[in-house]
């Protein structure tokens, strides 16, 4: 395995984030603080507790998920799209690197960034609410798996995109609505019966539910279902990436 090659991509990507620290770190954290102020403090103070959890604390897992999913997708998609845009993918393709190594480099860096932001948001949330995490190790594992799977998704988006508009279409028009409607700010049993069933078609529901279970021991769906979904989602993304590299789709030629 070309470990130095993986390390090179990883460090290069991490350095790119440090060059744009405001965009990479300050911006998502600031957005989350604003969510806490608006939904947690302003609106949340008038909301009833949900399953004995204050509304301010209840939204913490959803807010972390919302941010890390978007960050994972954005970082990974931009990470691979930018070399495509400026033409430097030739370096990756002509180097003695396997596709697995290239993916580990880019997805690893995107995961690290999103995971770090998730932890920073969690730390920030302690400034606003009191949280006792019921399953801390599982919470970290689930957070990591979410970052990995969405970074893989972002990598796919970056590969198939032909321009910056396409790069933003999937995150803006698909992922953001799904995350917002996936129970970030509510439990799905708060919805009318028809919409409850409809919400179960949204894969994000299972991820937020699983993450919330790690925090409070409660979720919209059984935890095993959530684990199954995240593993299924990760497997699908890996399969698509494998196909892309095997066929050279949008990379070679």
């Amino acid at each position: 395995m070309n470990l130095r090659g993986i390390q090179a991509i990883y460090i290069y990507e991490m350095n790119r984030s440090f060059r744009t620290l405001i965009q990479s770190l300050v911006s998502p954290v600031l957005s989350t603080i604003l969510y806490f102020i608006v939904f947690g403090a302003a609106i949340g103070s008038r909301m009833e507790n949900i399953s004995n959890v204050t509304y301010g604390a209840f939204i913490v897992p959803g807010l972390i998920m919302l941010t890390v999913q978007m960050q994972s997708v954005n970082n990974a998609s931009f990470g691979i799209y930018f070399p495509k845009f400026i033409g430097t993918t030739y370096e990756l393709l002509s180097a003695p690197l396997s596709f697995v190594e290239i993916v580990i480099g880019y997805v690893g860096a995107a995961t690290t960034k999103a995971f770090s932001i998730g932890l920073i948001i969690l730390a920030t949330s302690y400034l606003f609410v009191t949280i006792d995490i019921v399953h801390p190790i599982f919470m970290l594992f689930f957070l990591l798996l979410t970052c990995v799977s969405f970074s893989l998704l972002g990598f796919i988006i970056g590969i198939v995109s032909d321009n910056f508009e396409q790069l933003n279409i999937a995150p803006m028009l698909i992922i953001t609505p799904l995350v917002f409607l996936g129970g970030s700010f509510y439990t799905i049993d708060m919805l009318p019966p028809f919409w409850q069933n409809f919400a179960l078609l949204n894969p994000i529901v299972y991820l937020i539910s699983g993450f919330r279970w790690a925090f409070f021991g409660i979720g919209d769906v059984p935890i095993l279902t959530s684990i199954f979904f995240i593993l299924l989602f990760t497997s699908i993304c890996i399969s698509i990436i494998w196909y892309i590299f095997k066929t050279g789709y949008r990379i070679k030629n």
Partner: protein
Amino acid sequence: MSEIISVKNLVKKYDNDFIAVKNLSLKINQGEIIALLGPNGAGKTTLISTICGLASITSGSITVSGFDVIKDYRKTREIIGLVPQELALEPFEKVINSVKFSRRLFGKKDDVEYIENLLKKLQLYDKKDNIIKSLSGGMKRRVMIAKALSHNPKILFLDEPTAGVDVELRKDMWNIIKELKNEGVTIILTTHYIEEAEMIADNIGIINHGELLLVEEKNKLIKRMSVKTLKVKLKKSLSTIPSKLKKYNLKLIDEGNSFHYYYNTGKERTGITSLLSDMNQIGINLFDIQTEETSLEDIFVKIIKD
């Protein structure tokens, strides 16, 4: 010289059914400079891309240093450096970091001394901490070469290395290429500038419509294909070519005051002596003679047209 690259019956067909390379076979020896000439769309870049791993192969096989470029891609790519045609660089990165990044991609340890010497050789050392965006086009081209040489490759592919650079820089590039050859690097370059191939290449390959029309040692090719023109200026003008001289296929010019005689320098006899002798016998006196040589460009145009 031992063979370092072998391309056998290579076919490259794109998804839109366009066949860029048609059953192409080519052998390149270690330590030589081969210039691949051909018009736009001839298949030069596609050929390079398949060897370097940028494009998939439809059929055929390519080996580099005895290793298959698909099965043993790590071993083949380790010894190849590539400078693509386009200036593809991360604009916000420092020169030194960009070159180090390239070396690391090849799994090599950082080697400050090697990288610094490389930058000095390419006259980039005093720009090493500059952001690439701030460099001129010529300097960017040098950075591309530095990146391609960062892992000390045995083979260097240069795809149109001097496209769009000024004459001075082009000559600098030629010197760099010659230095690399002296260090034992095998160099494969594509170019539109025939003069470039004439100046630096050992061998010439001509590609058109995805087919390799010929590969030959440059000097032999020029000698073989070279047709010289002898211009004979006469003391008295001629209205027609005398019958005794018809066998020489002369062409009257300048209203009969001169004629052209074409001869091949690659042949044993040029026919000049017998022409002059026959002219003397029938009383045609010459006033002056000049010769014009065929350039590689003329040969290239002739081969492409044929």
